[in-house]
């Protein structure tokens, strides 16, 4: 049975070499060992007194970071969320030596991007509120500004800019994991806008609007959304909203008022 120290060492080398599958294999025994030595869920009062324990915790943090990045490389987002929620305890522990990490803002930004790609804007903003209270200026951080910018441009409709930002292959390779899902999200948004904003639109223009490479892709997208394609044009039908129960509701309301009035008089 290898000790925790050996395990962590081999995990580290595997990670540096970019060997994801062996990282994945090593992670579960390491986590079990961490639990055995009470390192996975840190005990802060102990950490403040015991220097050794604090060092060990830093190692545990490093393991979790590797785990998070690995699961991201394997596109296993659920695992990433798990690792991140465990890391969060370390990052916001209030003990400076534990909270500091070179990977901190990177991992947080990745989490924000994950939320964005899932379209969970509510959680995204809750998270921003949480971070804003602790980290100060979010917009100026090299990592954190990335998801914030993407969200902002998506919200106000500057899809061009958001697209360009995503296209320009960010320096951080992990960010690119989300590029595809985010691009799909942008197309979805534009598609939803387009069907309301135009009577009809040539396929050629739709292609440009949706950042597609070929008209074939465009047509597929159009059909998937249920748009009608005829003669090189897409025609958007306006839906007529039916209002049948309109009449009855007035009667109901009037009766309701009468009852209330009677109870007052």
């Amino acid at each position: 049975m290898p000790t925790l120290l050996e395990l962590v060492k081999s995990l580290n080398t595997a990670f540096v070499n970019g060997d994801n599958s062996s990282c994945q294999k090593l992670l579960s025994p390491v986590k079990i060992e961490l639990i055995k030595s009470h390192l996975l869920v840190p005990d802060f009062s102990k950490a403040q007194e015991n220097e050794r324990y604090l060092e060990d915790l830093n190692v545990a943090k490093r393991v979790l970071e590797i785990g998070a990045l690995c699961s991201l490389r394997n596109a296993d987002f659920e695992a990433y969320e798990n690792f991140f929620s465990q890391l969060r305890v370390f990052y916001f522990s209030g003990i400076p030596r534990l909270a500091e990490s070179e990977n901190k803002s990177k991992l947080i930004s990745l989490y924000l991007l994950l939320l964005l790609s899932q379209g969970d804007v509510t959680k995204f903003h809750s998270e921003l509120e949480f971070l804003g209270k602790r980290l100060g200026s979010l917009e100026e951080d090299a990592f954190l500004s990335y998801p914030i910018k993407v969200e902002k441009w998506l919200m106000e409709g500057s899809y061009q800019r958001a697209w360009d930002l995503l296209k320009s292959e960010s320096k951080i390779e992990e960010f690119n994991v989300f590029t595809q899902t985010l691009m799909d999200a942008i197309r979805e948004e534009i598609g939803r806008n387009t069907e309301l904003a135009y009577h009809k639109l040539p396929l050629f223009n739709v292609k440009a609007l949706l950042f597609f490479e070929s008209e074939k892709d465009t047509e597929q997208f159009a059909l998937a959304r249920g748009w009608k394609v005829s003669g090189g044009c897409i025609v958007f039908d306006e839906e007529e909203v039916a209002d049948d129960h309109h009449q009855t509701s007035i009667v109901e309301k009037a009766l309701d008022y009468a009852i209330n009035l009677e109870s007052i008089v």
Partner: protein
Amino acid sequence: MTSDLMEVDSAPQTEVKTDSESTVDKVLHLLQDVSKTTTTLDSRFVWKSLRELSTLRSSLEKEDLAVLVNLLYPESSTFKVPLLKFINNNQKSKVDNAEEQRQQYPAAFYQLTGGNSVDVSGEVNSFLHLLVQLYLLDSNQVDHLKVFNLQVVIPKVLNFYNNRTLDLINAKLWFYICRAHELRGDAFDTSIRSEMVKFLKTATLKHDNETRAMLITFILRSFLQTGEVDAAADFIGKVEFPGSNDVSSPLEARYYFYLSKLSAIQLDYSTANEYVIAAIRKAPNTKKCIGFLQQANKLHCAIELLMGDIPELSFFKQKNMERSLLPYYHLSKAVKLGDLNKFTSAISTYKKELVHDGNYQLCVRLRSSVIKTGIRIISLTYKKISLKDICLKLRLDSEQTVEYMVSRAIRDGVIEAKINHEEGYIESSELLNVYATQQPQQLFDERIRFVNQLHDECVKAMRYPEDGNKDKNKSADHDQLDEMIDISDLDEDDLGDFY
């Protein structure tokens, strides 16, 4: 009694001796009211004394409290030493004839404890602890107060008694515990939160509505302060806030304020708007809660802007609000004009104030509203306009961006228009006649419903005299109480304390 008070307030320095005596007397007077609750089990007497406490608060002095404690507590009482320790570090300030004086106090001040010894009753005891809290807070001994809370109030008072008559006082005690905790600047130290949750459980089991409401509000506040929005939302989903008949309206106002903030952060603006309006309505309109009202109005303004409404000019000209609403005034102006540059400069100029109010993240979100209003104004002015012109007017970077933004605005229902892509213009659809739609009727219905609800609530809130056989003296007393309940702004000073 009132005239007595006036005198004290006007000349506190000159007659120190009589002043201190009268304060002691006044407190004793209040305690008599409090102890009426012990005998009648009617909590309105406590309620009344708590109301009067706010006027007495400013004249509380160290010596008065020491004298009071010495007078009231028998030597054998376990509460006496800790109390004196926090008032004046156990300096000997013996009061002569304490024993004899004590004999004269109503029997309701005291109760029998286990081994045949006499101690002060729970009501009087809690009330005195509250006085000490007030004194420590007002004399800026926050550290002291915190220690007092942790060592004395929570373990020895709050966890000690189990009397239904103490509910109102307990709620107050908790208020000052939390206040002290916050003043120490330990917003991220959440130890007090677990204590609160524990007590909330007990309070809920006991149906102690006032304390329950107080604790829920504070736990919510503490979550929001540390930015744990998800946790706060979960918490709200799990607990049930007592109905409006069981808690005082300032507490409700505060609760609604926090709910509003929570919903606003979670992008549920229409709910947030309802809550913040409720908060402003419920808040007593007195001098002491201006701080709360200012804060609520700031949030209200931010939410309105986020919903795409511009507050009217009179909103910013409200009495006592003008200066504190200034940052929001400039923001609204930028949104109204649809001018992005102005907006950006307003945000950066007032960043400090906005962060302080905790509304910064909300206001940053306004950027998209600015663009939308810009587009809306243009679409209202022109029947047909080219995308290029919009681009120039709004100083955006490309026509394509404009096209996306306009289509987004159309989807969000900001404007009624169609884009003609080939010729590069947008054309506004025919303006609908509002009176041909269901809208007026809906609004009408909404208002009638509100009035009806108001009426129902008023009927519920009224207090009816209990029937018959009561001696005259007592019923007169009740009348007086009824009158005061109508005003119903018990802890307005709490709201004042906050901001």
